[in-house]
């Protein structure tokens, strides 16, 4: 990997609180994303993964520290595109209309929009559904439209917030492959949020493991598995298993620290909270 390249995204000692500072979401987060790199943010619930993505997108601002995208404070715009857990398509627009909507925001000339949108739909295999409305599509197809919309603006950074979490296992598998193929062709940087360890190891070049409450960086790991991964499935390799085990051990350790138990204590009030003053 080209380690010498200047980072595309850099976070330095980033902190963020919610509810007037009562809830500490993120603390002292520092990492870089290089151009063309596929980075996964992994961690148990409550570790601020989605908050981090929104910070990078510029939807919210950090309370402490510094977030830089292309050397600038981030602003929602054409350099960044987001894919959400649900497709978030505008239900009153057709499939092609939804992509045209994003292209219009990007400032593409009106006459080029439809053609480009159709080309993108072809790339995700949905060209014949261009005039369908989102509710006529299955969840997997909707998510592909969401992906096409994000790719259509040709972002330098693709932000993905658990994009496959709500899909069935088979669709998820297919879309992972498509994403890797898309990425290898276009080589935008991808910041991929997931709570699925296997998915993180399978897809990414680097994994940022986060600890919850408040969200902190636990460990940053390079994933060294043979490329291209959509052709030779790395899941059978010992390296994959080792990586997976290592990550699970870390997460079990976190749970042992009471991170998840705190949540459980709230769910069953008659149970004695094991570490109520953990925070």
């Amino acid at each position: 990997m080209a380690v010498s390249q200047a980072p595309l995204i850099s976070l330095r000692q980033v902190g963020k609180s919610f509810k007037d500072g009562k809830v500490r979401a993120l603390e002292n987060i520092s990492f870089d994303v290089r151009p063309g790199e596929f980075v996964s943010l992994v961690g148990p619930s409550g570790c601020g993964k989605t908050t981090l993505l929104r910070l990078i997108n510029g939807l919210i601002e950090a309370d402490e520290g510094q977030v830089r995208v292309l050397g600038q404070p981030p602003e929602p715009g054409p350099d960044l595109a987001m894919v959400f857990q649900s497709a978030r398509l505008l239900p009153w627009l057709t499939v092609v209309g939804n992509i045209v909507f994003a292209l219009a925001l990007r400032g593409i000339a009106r006459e080029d929009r439809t053609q480009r949108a159709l080309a993108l739909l072809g790339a995700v295999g949905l060209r014949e559904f261009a005039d369908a409305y989102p509710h006529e599509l299955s969840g997997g197809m909707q998510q592909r439209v969401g992906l096409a919309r994000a790719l259509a603006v040709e972002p330098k950074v693709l932000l993905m917030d658990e994009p496959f979490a709500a899909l069935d296992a088979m669709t998820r598998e297919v879309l992972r492959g498509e994403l890797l193929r898309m990425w290898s062709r276009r080589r935008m940087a991808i910041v991929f949020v997931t709570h699925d360890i296997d998915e993180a190891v399978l897809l990414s070049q680097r994994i940022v493991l986060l600890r919850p409450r408040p969200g902190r960086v636990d460990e940053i790991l390079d994933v060294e598995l043979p490329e291209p991964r959509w052709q030779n499935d790395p899941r059978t390799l010992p390296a994959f298993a080792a990586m997976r085990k290592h990550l699970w051990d870390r997460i079990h350790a976190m749970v042992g620290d009471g991170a998840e138990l705190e949540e459980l204590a709230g769910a069953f009030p008659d149970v004695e909270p094991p570490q109520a003053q953990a925070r």
Partner: protein
Amino acid sequence: MTELAPAHRTAPTLASPHSPSPVSSAAVLAERARTRRRREQGMVLGSQVTIALLFLVGMYALNATAGNLTMPNPLDVLDKSIIMWSDGTIPRALGQSLTVLGLGFLLAAVTGISLGILLGGFRFVGRVFDPFVNAMNSTPGAAFIPLIIVWFGLYTEAKVIVVWNAAVFPILINTAAGISSANKDLVEMARAFGASRMTLFWKVMVPDAMPSILSGLRIGAAICTVGTVIAELTMAQSGLGGLLIAAGNRFQMDRYFAVVIVLMALGTLITALLRYAERRLARWRVSLQEGR
């Protein structure tokens, strides 16, 4: 792929060489479903006609036992209807009523939607005006009639104001609620793609509020018919309301019923029209509700 598409889209791909005669079996299934639907439609219509006939029989019975004053003979009502339609009484009254109703509704729709957009779009404005809008909305429209008479007189313009006053608040409240409760996920999506505030508002929040705006209009239109009749009863008597009270005062129940039937038809027609508009303009939402 395991993905399912709506039936009409997958139908062509089903006709693959693997299945022996998918086209004909699909046609048989479609035909069976169509027959079932037609039968159900027939049952509904049949029941409706029966209920209408029962009403007529009831009218006859009441007329025969209690006399013309309690309930007119349906045939007399039909007679009077024909006379009043052909001598221009009802068409003229209908014209007057429709003028008041139409102008009032138009005014209420324009002001209600624009104020609603303002109140729903700007949280601060919405919060400031909320108690006032609620106060006005919960006051019966008829309460303002004396004031409106003093300010605007007794004729068409005053009646239009009565209708406007009755209909504007439901339209305004529905519009404002639709916009302020716009889908947060979609708003965030548009913001993430760099939508400006104006784009966000006109291309996401207002379309998202469209179903809510349209149901506001439908409720408003129904109230408009009520408002029109009330205005025509209490102010200078005119239109269908005027005919109604004139016939009622003279105990001409057959004439009275002839007018009531027109009002019923008018109300039904207006609601049906707006429901049609709702279906066309917010097709995506309607089909979501009806299930795939």
